[in-house]
């Protein structure tokens, strides 16, 4: 005899359209779930008080109360509950609001039974893997591997912890070097999916022609050069998290495919005829303003609303108070250990300097400066004279001098060269200043990354001919 499941295993379905209630209930019953249905918010809350259901399917618009209000009551009494919001097409903004208020996931009508069952399964897995509340120490606020106690960052840690428990898509913004990938990894590590893969893909570092295959995979022979089947990043991240960095670099055609993937949770590798179901959480990041990209027509608005569910903005280092010194103290000791040198910290003068500098390259720049110091000096304290000479000059200029658009650049060695030669010098210089990053160089030069890839390819072919 089958043992009786606890009442909390009963899925509570709050949906006011009777026929939809019947349809969803039938799909769930067929998959062996026990379901209780309610047609109003008040009935739903009464049933929830009785059952304490772990998973609630909640329609956004109910005749007596707003779905948001109902969800807030449920989460206030049982914060661990996974609420899956059901919404009609065209109400995405409201669904996003629900996700921000703590919903686990949302389903847009019409959805098929596979999508419904996948959402329920995800929710149940999240419950199963959720760490017991007793293990969370409220006094420990910093979220490793992040370093820093500034109020800005404490708010970020809190947000990461809150969002990790849901399936909500996270959109990370922040200047270059602020730790966007670290943030994505932290969301993954704090989530119920931490046992699954974390796959990061830099959309800006891959030529447009190859990006679709990198994300969705391809079958052998599907295009010239496809000598074997390739598992794309989405499939590789199945059961875990897919991190799409520099999402605004994504080609518009591929944005359409990404949107379809988000809507259906299926992928169709290049050359394949049948779609494949994938279960991933999406986190994306950009150092641009995504809304501005939408306004400029470079980023699909519908995709923006799908992705921009829970935004996390990482503050620049200059806005993080004394975090710069806390990070530097940690790093310098760690680097000294790696290099076999004897550094123990920063001098007071360096601490003051670091606090006042604008750090346009953020933590990444700080790391480079400290590595330079540790490699070239013995220690024990980082002193001002050990700092790279150009640091103060460059950073003071960045900090103090507003951009002078009218200033005429010195022609120097460029005089007498052809326009094509000058173009190459400028591009090489931009690439070298950005450590070879084509997307970053392209952004600085205000051209598309694909234009730079095309030029680099042409130069490479020309050199091979010589």
């Amino acid at each position, binding site marked *: 005899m089958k043992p009786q499941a606890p009442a909390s295993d009963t899925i509570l379905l709050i949906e*006011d*359209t*009777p*026929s*939809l209630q*019947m*349809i969803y209930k*039938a*799909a769930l*019953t*067929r998959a062996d779930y026990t379901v209780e249905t309610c047609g109003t918010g008040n009935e739903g809350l009464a049933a929830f008080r009785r059952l304490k259901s772990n998973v609630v399917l909640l329609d956004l*618009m109910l*005749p007596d109360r707003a779905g948001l209000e109902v969800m807030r009551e449920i989460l206030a009494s049982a914060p661990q509950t996974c609420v899956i919001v059901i*919404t*009609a*097409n*065209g109400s995405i903004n409201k669904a996003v609001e629900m996700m921000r208020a703590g919903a686990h996931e949302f389903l847009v*009508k*019409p*959805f*098929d*039974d596979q999508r*419904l069952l996948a959402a329920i399964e995800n929710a149940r897995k999240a419950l199963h893997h959720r760490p017991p509340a007793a293990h969370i120490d409220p006094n420990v606020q910093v979220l490793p591997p992040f370093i820093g106690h500034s109020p800005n960052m404490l708010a970020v840690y809190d947000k990461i912890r809150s969002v990790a428990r849901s399936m909500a898509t996270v959109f990370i913004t922040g200047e270059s070097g602020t730790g966007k990938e670290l943030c994505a990894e932290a969301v993954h590590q704090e989530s119920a999916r931490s046992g699954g893969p974390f796959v990061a893909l830099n959309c800006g570092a891959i030529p447009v022609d190859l990006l679709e295959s990198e994300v969705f995979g391809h079958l052998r022979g599907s295009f010239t050069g496809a000598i074997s089947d390739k598992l794309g990043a989405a499939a590789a991240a199945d059961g875990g998290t897919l991190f799409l960095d520099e999402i605004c670099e994504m080609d518009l055609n591929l944005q359409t495919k990404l949107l379809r993937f988000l809507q*259906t949770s299926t992928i169709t590798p290049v050359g394949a005829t049948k779609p494949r179901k994938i279960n991933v959480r999406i986190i994306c990041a950009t150092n641009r303003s995504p809304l501005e990209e939408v306004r400029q027509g470079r980023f699909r608005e519908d995709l923006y609303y799908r992705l921009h569910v829970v935004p996390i903005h990482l503050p620049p280092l200059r806005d993080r108070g004394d975090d710069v010194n806390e990070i530097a103290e940690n790093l310098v000791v760690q680097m000294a250990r790696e290099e076999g040198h004897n550094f123990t910290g920063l001098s007071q003068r360096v601490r003051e300097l670091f606090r006042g500098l604008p750090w346009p390259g953020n933590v990444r720049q700080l790391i480079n400066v400290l590595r330079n110091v540790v490699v070239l000096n013995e220690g024990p304290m980082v002193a001002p004279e050990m700092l790279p000479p150009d640091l103060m000059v460059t950073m003071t200029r960045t900090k103090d001098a507003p951009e002078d658009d009218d200033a005429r650049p010195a022609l120097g060695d460029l005089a007498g060269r052809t326009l094509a030669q000058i173009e190459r010098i400028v591009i090489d210089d931009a690439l070298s200043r950005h450590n070879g990053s084509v997307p970053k160089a392209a952004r600085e030069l205000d051209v598309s990354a694909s234009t730079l890839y095309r030029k680099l390819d042409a130069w490479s072919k020309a050199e091979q001919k010589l």
Partner: protein
Amino acid sequence: MTAINNSNANTDGRGSAPDFDAKVLEALLDIGGPDMREALSAQLIADFSRLQDGLKSGDAAVMSSAAHELKGLAATVGASRLAEMARSLDGIAKTLPQAARAVMAGALDREITVVLQSLSDAA
């Protein structure tokens, strides 16, 4: 709950979406097995009829609420064009002048009648 496909695309120019996808409805009616088929057909007919009445009421709030419910229900049963029309009305019902609301409600009424006929045939 099969996803909508466009196998029955309508070509009479009334809208870009197809009128009705019988395959979607068939799959839906079979979701609970033969025992449930009759009950689900009857419930769908009752729901569409209730929403049709709501649209005829002329009251902006009632029409808006009916249009909202209708867009999800219509899309689920494979009535793509009806879903599209309901979505259009849902966004603007409360701000539209009464005469314009009546025109849109009339078009929706005709479309619901088509869907109700399909439901009766399938039952």
